[in-house]
């Protein structure tokens, strides 16, 4: 009989910490990048050195402060209208996060609704919805969003509408597939409990299982939303006026790319880190939340 006496009871790490560790470096890096983005967006008024739409034509196209010609007041220089690049970058983060959040949530809501509809009712409803999704996905997304935004007119609403209209199918397909799988699994149980309405089954069984999937997709979708906004800004049909967006800064920067390359380069850096952040976060979350995917 071996001695199993321990000096202190062994603490089992809580489930969350264990899950966090499972996510690996992807989760950490992704969460940090996204966290920084959200923080900057929230604290924009506090951390931006200047008013992003305040023009100072006397100080137009100043290079970053550490190069020659730069001024310490404008850390990342100014654009052709003398607006502080750093402040515009920071406030653009705000727009980006707002657009990403709203558009992704709406796309998710519509996509999940359609997906649940198709998956749980089956039959001709499923057929119809699937056909609709297929046809929808046959349209070239970039062209579709450009046409849409051109049609609705410039502004944040059109950007969000464009994103939602183009990408709700992503959620719909996945949710539909998952619903079908779940329902098949619980079919016997559901058949037994005939009294239990489809709605209740959906609520109790399927929705909780969809959460990890949806969370991951949401993260990826937010990255996509940022990209679509950039595209639309670049083509000239995003937000109007002075509202700073990364895409808008890139479009402006492209015109004067030889004279003032930093105006185009800096927003690109912000976009890349945000998108990579969202993708890594989504990937990491998927590994954490999906028990089957353990490495």
């Amino acid at each position, binding site marked *: 009989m071996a001695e199993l006496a321990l000096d202190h009871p062994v603490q089992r790490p809580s489930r969350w910490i264990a899950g966090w560790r499972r996510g690996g470096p992807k989760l950490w890096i992704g969460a940090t990048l996204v966290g920084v983005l959200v923080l900057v967006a929230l604290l924009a008024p506090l951390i931006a050195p200047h008013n992003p739409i305040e023009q100072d034509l006397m100080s137009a196209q100043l290079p970053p402060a550490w190069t020659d010609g730069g001024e310490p007041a404008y850390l990342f220089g100014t654009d052709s209208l003398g607006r502080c690049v750093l402040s515009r970058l920071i406030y653009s983060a705000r727009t980006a996060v707002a657009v990403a959040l709203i558009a992704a949530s709406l796309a998710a809501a519509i996509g999940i609704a359609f997906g649940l509809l198709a998956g749980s009712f089956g039959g001709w409803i499923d057929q119809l919805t699937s056909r609709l999704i297929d046809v929808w996905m046959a349209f070239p997304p970039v062209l579709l969003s*450009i046409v849409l935004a051109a049609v609705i007119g410039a502004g944040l609403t059109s950007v969000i509408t464009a994103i939602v209209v183009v990408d709700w199918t992503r959620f719909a397909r996945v949710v539909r597939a998952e619903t079908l799988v779940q329902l098949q699994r619980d079919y016997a149980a559901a058949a037994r409990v005939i009294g239990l309405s489809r709605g209740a089954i959906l609520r109790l069984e399927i929705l909780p299982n969809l959460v990890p999937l949806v969370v991951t997709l949401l993260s990826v979708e937010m990255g996509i939303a940022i990209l679509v906004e950039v595209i639309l800004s670049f083509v000239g049909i995003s937000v109007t006026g002075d509202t700073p967006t990364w895409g808008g800064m890139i479009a402006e920067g492209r015109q004067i790319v030889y004279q003032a390359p930093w105006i185009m380069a800096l927003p*690109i850096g912000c976009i*890349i880190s945000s*998108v*990579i952040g969202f993708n890594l976060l989504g990937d990491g979350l998927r590994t954490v939340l999906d028990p089957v995917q353990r490495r």
Partner: protein
Amino acid sequence: MRWGEIIRRLVLIPPTLVGVAVIVFVLLRVVPGDPIAMMIPPGASPADIDRLRAFYGLDQSIPQQFITWSGQALSGHFGRSISLHQQVFELVLARLPATLELALLATLIAVVLGLIAALIGTQVRGRRAEWLVDGGVGILLSIPDFLWALILLLLFGVLVPLLPISGRIDPEIDVSFHSNFYLIESLLTARFDVASALLHHMILPALALALPFAALLARVLKTSLAEAEDQDYAQVARARGFSRPKILLREVFPNALIPTVALGGVQVTLLLGGTVLVERIFSYEGIGNMAIDAVINRDFPLIQGLILTFAVLFIAINLAVDLLVTLLDPRLRHG
């Protein structure tokens, strides 16, 4: 081969195109934005406006317009561009070769890069370097083609000015070509200096289009190779005394190619869609660039013509990919 399947697909093409045409047609006319209003000079009288409207057939009802347009389309006459004042058919045909050459070059680059990355990834399978390959590919996948276009433009056009960042060819060069397939023609006629100039202009946009595609191919191929290598027939081959490289090349690769072509082939359509922005960013004179202007100018006939062109290309690519997969997988041939 499954002839029945192929014929069925071919037969379905016209109705699909009609469907696309109808949707686009209605969409454009139902939503706000009047092309005539956008092109009239200030001080034009209402009579002038009406005349212009009649000239472009926009005074008729929508079904009427569609019938007129379809009738013309069937005889190869796709209308007159409102913003460019030329026949849509000729405009599209003039610029299509540029985009096709770009897409072809991009696909070629992507296949080569993807192959190399997948093979390297397979060589280091199980070792720590694999993490590097997977991570690199992952990052490449996160960045879409237009962002790559901007990055490449900055890096190699501005910061280290190696390459031009706009246009298809230097305006100074004499381009007496017969077709608009500049690159192919210059290669075939051995005018390598011209070909080189063309490639200088094409390499950055082609690379931008190629990188995300290459990353996808690399990931799919690497995964497929790994799966196939674990299959019994590959293990048995090892028991027969063949070396790992030989087995990879001769037994595993033909199998891994099947899902790769199936998944990757579809992505070629995405690459084609990507030309819209990438051409714009590099001011490359292809149909993608033209499409953006057409939309901004509400040039209905041109938009319709371009969308139909893209639709035809997408359908053709999908069909080609399916045929290719059937060629590669003998199990699909007798269905």
